[in-house]
């Protein structure tokens, strides 16, 4: 496929308050980690140009607020998304358990036509924190969630540290690939980058799960 125009990929980052969504995005986009970001209100927007499969794409990343009260805002930000990143904090079990509801909420509000095949990716952040504070038997719990909450779908999983810049780049590379696939799919289906998702076409993303650190 020849590059006719700038490819814009829209990525949404979701997850509980305080799991490190802003830090992940800042680490990826600006290669920096600050100890104190203010709580995100509504959603923040950042962009980064990267090369995926020899193609230059621009990631438009929406870093959303984690508090539940802001969820009704989703419609304004989720529409037209090409990939959704679900974040949790490896030291906070509740944030892990909430992944399912974040995913469901996203599918409801973004109104994507192919919910079964929409590309999600899971990121467990804060692996730099001492082992003792981490969720006990994390991988088992994570498996339970993907099996039950996510209907057995295998979404790529990354464990990252935004603070120490571990796995962040790798995760976003996969995010970009998945988003690009989704975008090209829309292109084929809808003829242009509209929000018009027509028939669902099965794509399988299992091959991308190489970054799983579990």
């Amino acid at each position, binding site marked *: 496929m020849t590059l006719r125009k700038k490819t814009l990929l829209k990525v949404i980052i979701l997850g509980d*308050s*305080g799991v490190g969504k802003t830090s992940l995005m800042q680490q990826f986009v600006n290669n920096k980690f*600050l*100890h*104190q*970001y*203010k*709580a*995100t*209100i*509504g*959603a*923040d*927007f*950042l*962009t980064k140009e990267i090369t995926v499969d020899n193609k230059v794409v*621009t990631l*438009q990343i929406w870093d959303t*607020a984690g*508090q539940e*009260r*802001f969820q*009704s*805002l989703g419609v*304004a*930000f989720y529409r037209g998304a090409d990939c959704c990143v679900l974040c949790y*904090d490896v*030291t*906070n*079990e*509740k944030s892990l358990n909430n992944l399912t509801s974040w995913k469901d909420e996203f599918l409801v509000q973004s109104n994507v036509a192919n919910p079964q095949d929409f590309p999600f990716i899971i990121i467990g952040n804060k692996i730099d924190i001492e082992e003792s*504070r981490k969720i006990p038997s994390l991988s088992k719990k994570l498996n339970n969630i993907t099996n039950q909450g996510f209907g057995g779908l295998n979404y790529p999983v990354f464990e990252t540290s935004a603070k120490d810049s571990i796995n962040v780049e790798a995760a976003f590379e996969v995010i970009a690939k998945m988003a690009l696939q989704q975008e090209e799919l829309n292109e084929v289906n809808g003829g242009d980058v509209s929000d018009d998702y027509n028939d669902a076409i099965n794509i399988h993303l299992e091959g991308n799960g190489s970054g799983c650190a579990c």
Partner: protein
Amino acid sequence: MGKKKQEMAQVYSNSNNEFIFGENGGRGKHLSSFLKNLSLTGSSASKSPSSSTKPDDYQEANSNIYGSLAWGAPKGTGGMPRGVSNSGSIISSSLKRTPTQRSVSLGTPSAHRSPTREEYTKTPGSSSRRRSQSNSRYADLDDDWDAGLDEVSVVPKQPENRNFPMLDSLYPDLTLPSASSSTSNLESPKKESMDFEDYQAKLEINKLNQLNSKYSKFRKVLTTDSSINLQDLRKLAWNGIPPELRALTWQILLGYLPTNKSRQRSTLKRKRQEYMEGIEAVANIDFEDDAPSNTSSTSIGTNREKQLYHQINIDVKRTHPTIKLYSFPEVQLSLRKILYLWAVRHPASGYVQGINDLCTPFFQIFLGHYLWQLQRKASIQKQGNEAEEDLFIQGLMDDTDTAEQALLQDPRLGDYTIDTFNPKLISSRVLSLIEADTYWCLSRLLENITDNYIHEQPGILRQVGDLKNLISRIDIELLNHFDHEGIEFIQFAFRWMNCLLMREVSINLITRMWDTYLSETPLGFNNFHVYVCAAFLVKFSSELKHMDFQEILLFLQNPPTQSWTEKDVELMLSEAFIWQSLYKNASAHLRN
């Protein structure tokens, strides 16, 4: 109409905008004549053969609008209808504001006083009291005045000097002579020719104007009567409150402190007591616990309570991360208590992210006020100055407080500011009083915007919609550009509403904005704020129109306000005021 509006904007930005900050806060007379003259603007411009882009037209329109207002406008602007002026002409031309000459008159001897304010002369004991206060020295009120009271010495003794109108010292060039013409004895000098005596008198008046000050005006309103005149206070405060009097004035404007001064002490005592009892009632939360995760086990509340506390806890840690004051554990503890109590007392909304930002102006202004009280008190002990205790918020000082006594002896006390002060130095007693005041003032503020934080945040959605409608009236090209680029207002304006622009403008300027918000009736945090947001957005209009989707969002996420001063904010507030005046009673019109 569109043409007229454009002219107005031009006129407005070309000329001295200060009229809006005049004595009447740009309201009342100023506004009505302003609006009245808007129609003149339209007609005069349309008669002119050339189009409205000709600068002369602006000047003409300018004179139509400002003609009866702006005495001190530069002569070069032309078209200034000097003939209309009555007594104002005596003082108009030479009244150039020279900031360095301005000085403070804390104790205004009777001859200084404006004859129009009869209430200030009628209390017999007041003049002697004032004279005694003129000994007190006041420093650092405003960057452009000199606090040396030696300069007060020039007092015109001749009785005829009382006949001259006292001008607004802040904006002497803007005061309407008619404002003082209600008093009959002012009429005599008007329209008389300028002889030497007049010239002398003019110089005297000039000096008097400079001697008068914002501070002493506030002082008068706050201390003269047993009951504070809220109208007068609002008029003054709309244009900005002197930092030292901000805490007291805010508490009165919010209705937390009663205007009846005899009731203030007891009200504060009761309210503070109520707050302490409220905190005790949520005893199942350990406010000392600031462990980062909700897995911490010390709190024994329900899951819901734990979750609430967790949210507040993590947000307090990241409140104003760049301001040192908020990094102290003592301050964070206070904020946790305030926010938690507010949330459990308001279950319909509960705590919503952003409310943490909203309580900080109160907290730091009230803490700063306590510091000021200490500094005043220390300076009497040293120099025998008057402490001005009638301007103190009651109940903060306590002679038995050892931390307070230590601070009073601290040689560096005079240098402490809110940015350098270590809150560890004050007692937990004082901290909890400041907490209580902050809690109640925050509650008062949020009462005005409850819809912003309940489920689905309908208040914010309405405000964002109103903002868009407003922009469609003010700057349709910008709106069209946004539409073309696929920008939705909710994408950037949500935060503007949720945090009242606290993420976009530095906290020092936010406190200045709140002076005005608190002087609006109803309080400006709801509707007036939308007009402020419109003024804020339109400020960047020309830049935004050349940007694409990404650039616009990135720009609005981090708007270049770092170098802003109070002047920028005041300009924005005055623009907001004009738009509110034009559109607030025309919502049908606004909504197409």
